[in-house]
């Protein structure tokens, strides 16, 4: 018996309201997979102040690279995929994994890594996930009509979806996106609702290159919690826009930008001093042993541009170019890959600069890249030096 004088009685409640159907699923009436998925959605909704769940039409999953999810993640996905009813209910696409299976034997990854990564791939495929292994789903799949609710776990893709494609998503976790794929539902939390930026970042840099946009994204992502306005951008090409999304997704929780001045918002300038401070934080080396392009992965237009820039030139250092398989196949048919491969670069699919074990800190001291997102992960996760250079500078300095 409890000693009544010492009883601490706490009353707690749930804020996520479920439909009768959803409540039954959470109670286990539709099997263990649905029960687990709804438990994840409710837990995520409670943690992010969602009052209900909403239907979603497309889920994009992170948590694919064995380098990030490890043995525990591999075991969970393997167990889950074997259960009755473990099938995705909406279109579901997948982030990059650790390597490109076509060339993995050229690297010294070890059999254990390769077999665990293949097990993760098989688990997702068994559940009906499209094995796209890409962080730019917005460039390789058709975009649904404006206002459609989706569930994207990759941060640059979530920001692109909200800011450029007219879709609505939170910056989902690997788990909430997976649960959304299995149920077709997602918590109706902040970014799915109308969201007015309370900070405007004023872009003051003249003639910005894609790296300046990446640093702007990184800066703006730190300045705002959920959404941000950016003024002073007359036009932005695809490469710069992706660089901005990547930088922003890396810096914090901000999941949306809009162009222009948000009335009544706090104003923050992004000028040479601010840009220098981001550069100083991420640039740790004067040169690199290896060049990487991609993070986010390159799309068809970027591959075409690159093939033109490389005409008659050759890389003087190793260069890895990360590009979705669907894009490489198209680029190959159109003849865009020929010049790039002749120039000595390796085109890799299904993986990306961020967190690929193909970049081995035992062999590589520093990497040259134009990606702010890539630079952040190379420095903080891979543990190599980072030499930031815009693409034009890379071509100038590292090809002849």
């Amino acid at each position: 018996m409890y000693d009544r004088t010492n009883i601490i009685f706490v009353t707690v409640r749930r804020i996520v309201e479920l439909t009768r159907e959803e409540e039954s699923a959470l109670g286990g009436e539709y099997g263990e997979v649905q029960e687990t998925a709804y438990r994840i959605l409710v837990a995520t909704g409670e943690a992010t102040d969602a009052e209900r769940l909403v239907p979603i039409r497309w889920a994009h999953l992170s948590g694919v690279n064995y380098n990030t999810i490890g043995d525990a993640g591999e075991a969970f996905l393997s167990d889950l995929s074997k259960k009755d009813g473990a099938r995705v209910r909406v279109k579901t696409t997948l982030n990059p994994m650790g390597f490109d299976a076509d060339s993995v034997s050229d690297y010294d990854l070890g059999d254990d890594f390769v077999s665990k990564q293949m097990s993760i791939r098989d688990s997702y495929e068994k559940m009906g996930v499209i094995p796209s292994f890409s962080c730019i789903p917005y460039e390789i799949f058709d975009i649904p009509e404006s206002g459609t609710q989706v569930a994207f776990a990759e941060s640059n893709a979530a920001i692109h979806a909200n800011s450029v494609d007219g879709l609505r998503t939170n910056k989902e976790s690997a788990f909430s996106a997976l649960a959304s794929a299995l149920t077709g539902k997602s918590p109706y939390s902040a970014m799915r609702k109308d969201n007015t930026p309370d900070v405007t970042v004023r872009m003051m840099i003249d003639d910005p290159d894609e790296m300046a946009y990446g640093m702007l994204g990184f800066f703006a992502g730190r300045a705002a919690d959920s959404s941000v306005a950016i003024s002073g951008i007359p036009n932005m090409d695809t490469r710069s826009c992706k660089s901005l999304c990547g930088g922003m997704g890396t810096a914090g929780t901000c999941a949306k930008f809009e162009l222009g001045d948000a009335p009544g918002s706090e104003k923050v300038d992004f000028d040479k001093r601010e840009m220098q401070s981001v550069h100083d934080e991420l640039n740790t080396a004067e040169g690199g042993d290896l060049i990487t392009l991609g993070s986010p992965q390159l799309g068809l237009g970027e591959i075409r541009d690159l093939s033109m820039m490389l005409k008659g030139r050759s890389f003087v250092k190793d260069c890895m170019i990360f590009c979705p398989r669907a894009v490489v196949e198209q680029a190959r048919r159109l003849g865009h890959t020929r010049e790039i491969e002749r120039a000595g670069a390796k085109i890799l699919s299904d993986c990306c600069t961020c967190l690929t074990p193909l970049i081995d800190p035992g062999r590589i001291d520093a990497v040259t890249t134009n990606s702010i997102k890539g630079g952040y992960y190379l420095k903080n996760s891979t543990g190599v030096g980072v030499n930031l250079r815009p693409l034009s500078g890379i071509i100038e300095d590292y090809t002849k």
Partner: protein
Amino acid sequence: MRVIVKGRAQGTILKSEEPINFLGTVDKITGRVRDRAHPLYQKPMAGSVLLFPYGIGSSVGAYTIYSIQSHGAAPVAMICKRADLTVATGCALANIPLILIGDDEFERMRDGQRVAVDAESGQASVNVQS
């Protein structure tokens, strides 16, 4: 105060005044904290009701919670002051009841007390016996 993952459990409070980084510092098999500077260093979590302010570190730490549950090394319930997605989704994956309480209750609950957590319905309660 919130129910994040429902369920019922009884156990002994294992209290940490410090946040827990599941990915970075908790052993995936034994469930013991490896960080010497942490108040829970090497203390078994199995069977306990783990009381701590909130989780920190990578969201992949949710898989660590699933892993220690699979190895029989997980707490029977968790109680936090603040929600974070790592602990919330980790408890959801592993089906470990998780509730949030206020600062006052957190202060009053002590290491080693017996506690019954009932978070089965929309309402939930925590009964503590010293």
